[in-house]
């Protein structure tokens, strides 16, 4: 490699920017690529907070308890050593963010305040109002801007990663990216590349995810040989609000601050919420889970809401809806603690949280699965890293609320230095500069790919196909899963793959042609959908977010294993194998949140 190796980070959310900062601090040059300006990345949508066992409230909290809550909350599917390291690092991550100027809410003594969140009995979640992700992202974006001014970082905003450049030995040597304004392809050699490209929520059409979360980058490298792990584990958040374009999250912090979920005891009760007396309300989580109450982990709360609305017909007005009641907390408290969330409700649905309960229902929210990485966050492709939601590492079968912000940042803090070690170590040194033949070949290949996309003809509209995919995925591959339905869905996806080949190019414009980019992203979504569906189909057990009524129990003997999907170009489907999970630190035990479960 050259004297000064260059690094590439694709994705400018929390994980990507943390990676950039670490590489820049180590004295190296780094280019960051992002569809949207980094400051507008999906990380802004995280509302409730970031976990770290700082024990400000004197409850005896510790990183060890955080570690246990996380592993137990994830139903033992996560490899334990990295989870332990993350929980130990978490208080330091929060302090770092505080030093970067995040306006965390404070205690009367001027310390960082902490709130309750799901799946724990401790106040462990630091927060900045109720737009914590936005605030953390801004802090990292500002630090990266500082490095940009110092000449260490180049930003390629409004660029899309379209191809990883792999040499004959399968090492990642750079990327091809598209300038989304001028629609020009360019080649960028690099000593190491990190994908920090987020989750694939858009595969489900409407979800709590942002528009950019198509999973397209992960799907591209998966098709180039990267392993995708635990794809079937998709978190469905219990509380969101409907919309014509997306489903909007109503943060777990609403319950962390005292919000209560209930439905009228009388089926189809037509009275307004406030006219229903206390003894005619069914606080379903509080009754069944007296210890954790409304703060059971998300997979459990979501299943309870589904059971009530879909099977028992107990939803508000007989619909897919339950009450999330904050009215007892008062206007001042609500505005101060969770103003950013209830504002979203007020703007998009109407109604004030202090006057009447919110009406909510579950929505696809997060992917626990993602690209397989080792403990340094390198994928099985040497030189290619994955950090943040796009990796599979920390959350097992179910993620605890407020653990995503810490895992995103922590993975960048681990990944960045590991990339530097790789590039400046023996392997990187021996690789030398990638040949111009390799780079030119990659460019030509992509020019052909996008040239062909620009000439597509046929009866199908890619945006319509996407909407169909989203509908079916939401119906059959979310909360309750049946093998026959998954099998049928996989067949449909293969049908849409055929239809995709007969998509019409909607736009031949030379400037900012979003339709062409979307058409390729749609193919990638179809590929990932098959990974999710096949993984779910083959996993005949129930664990965390993955629930099959025909196999209602967890089966450690057969399935305490990481699902590994590798792409088969012949069928466009996954080849699935299983890998042992490292459970060397906490022995798996039955996961129970009812009654007097573990403290």
């Amino acid at each position, binding site marked *: 490699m050259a004297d000064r190796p260059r690094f590439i980070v694709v994705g400018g959310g929390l994980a990507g920017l943390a990676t950039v900062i670490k590489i820049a601090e180590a004295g190296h040059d780094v280019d960051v690529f992002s569809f949207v300006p980094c*400051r507008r990345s999906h990380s802004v949508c995280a509302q409730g907070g970031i976990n770290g066992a700082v024990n400000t409230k004197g409850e005896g909290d510790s990183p060890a308890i955080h570690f246990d809550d996380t592993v137990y909350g994830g139903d033992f599917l996560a490899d334990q050593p990295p989870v332990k390291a993350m929980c130990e690092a978490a208080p330091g991550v929060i302090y770092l963010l505080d030093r970067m100027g995040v306006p965390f*809410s404070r205690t009367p003594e001027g310390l960082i305040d902490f709130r309750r969140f799901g799946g724990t009995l401790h106040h462990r979640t630091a927060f900045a109002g109720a737009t914590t992700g936005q605030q953390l992202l801004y802090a990292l974006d500002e630090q990266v801007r500082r490095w940009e001014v110092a000449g260490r970082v180049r930003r390629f905003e409004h660029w899309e990663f379209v191809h990883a450049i792999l040499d004959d030995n399968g090492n990642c040597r750079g990327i091809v990216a598209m300038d989304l304004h001028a629609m020009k392809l360019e080649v960028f050699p690099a000593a190491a590349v990190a994908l920090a490209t987020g989750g694939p929520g858009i595969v489900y059409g409407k979800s709590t995810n942002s528009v950019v979360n198509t999973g397209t980058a992960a799907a591209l490298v998966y098709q180039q040989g990267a392993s995708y792990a635990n794809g079937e584990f998709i978190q469905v958040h219990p509380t969101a609000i409907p919309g014509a374009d997306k489903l909007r999250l109503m943060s777990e912090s609403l319950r962390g601050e005292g919000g209560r979920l209930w439905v009228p005891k009388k089926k189809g009760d037509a009275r307004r919420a406030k006219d229903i007396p206390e003894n005619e309300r069914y606080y379903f989580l509080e009754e069944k889970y007296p210890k954790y109450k409304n703060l059971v982990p998300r997979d459990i709360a979501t299943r309870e809401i589904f059971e009530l609305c879909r099977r028992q017909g107990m939803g508000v007005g007989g619909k897919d809806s339950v009450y999330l009641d904050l009215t007892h907390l008062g206007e001042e408290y609500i505005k101060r603690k969770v103003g950013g969330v209830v504002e979203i409700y007020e703007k998009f649905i109407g109604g004030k949280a202090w006057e009447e309960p919110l009406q909510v229902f579950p929505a696809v929210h997060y992917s626990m699965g993602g690209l397989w990485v080792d403990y340094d966050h390198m994928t099985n492709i040497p030189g290619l890293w994955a950090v943040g939601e796009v990796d599979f590492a920390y959350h097992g079968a179910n993620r605890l609320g407020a653990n995503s912000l810490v895992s995103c940042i922590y993975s960048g803090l681990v990944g960045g230095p590991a990339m530097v070690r790789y590039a400046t170590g023996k392997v990187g040194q021996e690789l030398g500069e990638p040949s111009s033949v390799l780079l030119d070949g990659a460019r030509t290949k992509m020019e052909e790919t996008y040239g062909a996309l620009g000439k597509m003809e046929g009866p199908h509209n890619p945006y319509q196909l996407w909407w169909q995919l989203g509908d079916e995925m939401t119906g059959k591959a979310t909360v309750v899963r049946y093998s026959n339905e998954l099998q049928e869905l996989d067949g449909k996806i293969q049908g849409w793959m055929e239809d995709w080949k007969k998509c019409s190019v909607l736009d031949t414009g030379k400037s900012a042609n*979003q339709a062409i980019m979307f058409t390729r992203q749609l193919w990638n979504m179809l590929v990932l959908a098959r990974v999710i569906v096949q993984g779910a189909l083959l996993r005949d057990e129930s664990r965390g977010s993955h629930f099959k009524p025909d196999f209602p129990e967890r089966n450690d003997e057969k399935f305490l294993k990481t699902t590994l999907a590798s792409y088969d170009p012949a069928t466009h489907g996954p080849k699935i194998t299983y890998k042992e999970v490292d459970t060397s630190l906490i022995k798996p035990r039955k996961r129970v949140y009812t009654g007097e479960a573990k403290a």
Partner: protein
Amino acid sequence: MGKLGDQVQFKIKRQAGPETAPYWEEFSVRWEPMMNVIAALMEIQRHPVNAAGQKTTPVVYSSNCLEEVCGACTMVVNGRVRQSCSALVDQLAQPITVEPMSKFPVVRDLYVERQRIFEDFKKVNAWIDTDGSHNLGPGPRYSAEVADMRYALSRCMACGCCLEACPNYGPGIPFIGAATVSQARLFNLHPSGSMKASVRLDALQAEDGIGGCGNAQNCVQVCPKEIPLTTSIGDMMRATTKQAFQSLFRR
């Protein structure tokens, strides 16, 4: 309030590229519950046909979070600059006009390039000069009151609404605008950030600085996050004046 079966009328200002002339195209889009401007643009992607029944291209626009925290989908809707995700069709008079922001270069259709905002953030050192990302223990203690004040300022999405509405901001005019002035205040309010307060105040005294404000006060009226922008400008004006006096006496 619309109902199923209704059509919603849109007039959208389009432009094929940065150098070409803009034109209007009308669309008739079927109403759906909880419909916002974004949902209409998505429906046009699925059915790219204009109101005259002619085949057209999907409208190009920028969007991301769709819940008014990223700032990407800022447009001028019925003459008012705002995020198009929170522009609910049932609350808008028809035909609904949708235009790109006028203070920034158009890339295509409703999609504008707002990099200037981020460039201006650099001028005022809109960051904390940390010693590094290694573990250095807790940050400085400060009061809940200051944290709340900083949080209110820090919700700025760099969406550019305040700049679009400002008569003293635009191409060819040096003024950095309310959002950037408010950033300077945000960092000057932080205990470590205040150590570089004079650098930010110096920047605000430059030709493109706070002196460009004409006190129209449009900024604070259009800010979707109700950031006290005029308070920030007033506060920074006092601080820059104070600093100017102090440096005068130091000579």
